[in-house]
């Protein structure tokens, strides 16, 4: 009681500056973490996307619609046709990999196929066939298999329609006349009336 007055005279304690919760705090409270990493992982770009960590092992086909970084093991095919698939230095895929872009730093025993580009970086090990528009293989990478580059042909110019032959021209004129008559007959009908 004798301290109450004194407490009222004391300045209010400073309000703590609000800080965002750390990932450890979130994990402790059971709040799901985002699948988009906010920190740079080794030398991979911060493109976002899913990550299969080093301790993870997946058996089966991996499909989806986002970029993926594989640092663990996948026994099965990886098919992300519209995205980038990266097999990290510690990653191991025992199966085929298909994507828009495929970048290998680790090990793949299977075929690689990309609609745009395949990159095999130094110290990577790939045993399987490659198929893409552009293929880059760094020195010191180990590769064994077939290489097929997809040739992209330039779009052909639209050719101007050639004038029809005389007989065909006459038939065309008859056809266009009858269609014009039909259109006129249709127009003469009252709205709601259909020609039977």
């Amino acid at each position, binding site marked *: 009681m004798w301290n109450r007055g004194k407490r009222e005279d004391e300045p209010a304690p400073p309000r703590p500056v609000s800080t965002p919760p750390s990932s450890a705090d979130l994990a402790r409270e059971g709040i799901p973490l985002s699948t988009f990493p906010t920190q740079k992982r080794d030398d991979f770009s911060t493109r976002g996307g899913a990550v299969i960590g080093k301790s993870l092992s997946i058996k089966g086909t991996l499909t989806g619609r986002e970029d993926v970084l594989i640092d663990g093991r996948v026994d099965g095919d990886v098919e992300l046709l519209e995205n980038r698939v990266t097999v990290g230095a510690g990653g191991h895929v025992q199966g085929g990999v298909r994507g828009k872009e495929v970048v290998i730093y680790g090990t793949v025993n299977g075929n690689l196929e990309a609609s745009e580009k395949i990159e095999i970086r130094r110290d990577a090990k790939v045993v399987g066939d490659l198929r893409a528009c552009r*293929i*880059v*293989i760094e020195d010191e990478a*180990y590769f*064994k*298999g*077939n*290489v*097929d580059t997809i*040739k992209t042909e330039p779009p052909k110019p639209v050719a101007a329609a050639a004038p029809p032959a005389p007989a065909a021209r006459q038939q065309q004129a008859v056809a266009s006349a009858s269609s014009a008559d039909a259109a006129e007959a249709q127009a003469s009908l009252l709205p709601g009336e259909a020609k039977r």
Partner: protein
Amino acid sequence: MPPPPRPPAEQPRRSHAFEHLSAWLTSNTGLQVVDFGGVNQSNLDFLTGLGHRLYADDLLRAADHFFAAKTGQKEEERYSAANIEEFLSQTLDFPDQTIDAVLLWDTLQYLNPALALALVERLYRASAPDCRLLAFFQPASPTLSGTPVSCRILDESTLETRPRGTPRKQQTFNNRGIEKLFQRFQSVKFFLTRDHVQEVIVRR
């Protein structure tokens, strides 16, 4: 500051044998080409740019890895006929008469003799009629050892060779020995370089 001069071993050099081969490659499309010197970007771009299908493997590295794992103190035990057959089945798994061109570079000189013979025999079976093989043979070394080279195709007639790996035992082939090695093939054409490398084009 200008870059340091490249060592002589990495200087580009003209290869008459490769020029001969690339003229034939350029006049054909859709060939199955096998490069046993390991893949590199230059060779990949050149060969696929001509419209050919490329199979690449580092044969020396694959052989070292395979036979090192085989039991046997003596080389003859590790390079037994059964082991050689197993290795070639894994490495040269091509149906008969399906390969149109083979780039052996200097690989044959650094393989075990029994393996080199078996490889050539297997290549004869796997190569299509009119198939061309390119092989290099370094001059005899007094130490009976040499360093394998990595060959990069710079253009239709120019190669860049770089030493790769450490010195190892090297087989010595004279012209007669090379002819005997490829005796089942239709013809062997020789090209001698200024530094006494024997380049050969072998035709099935």
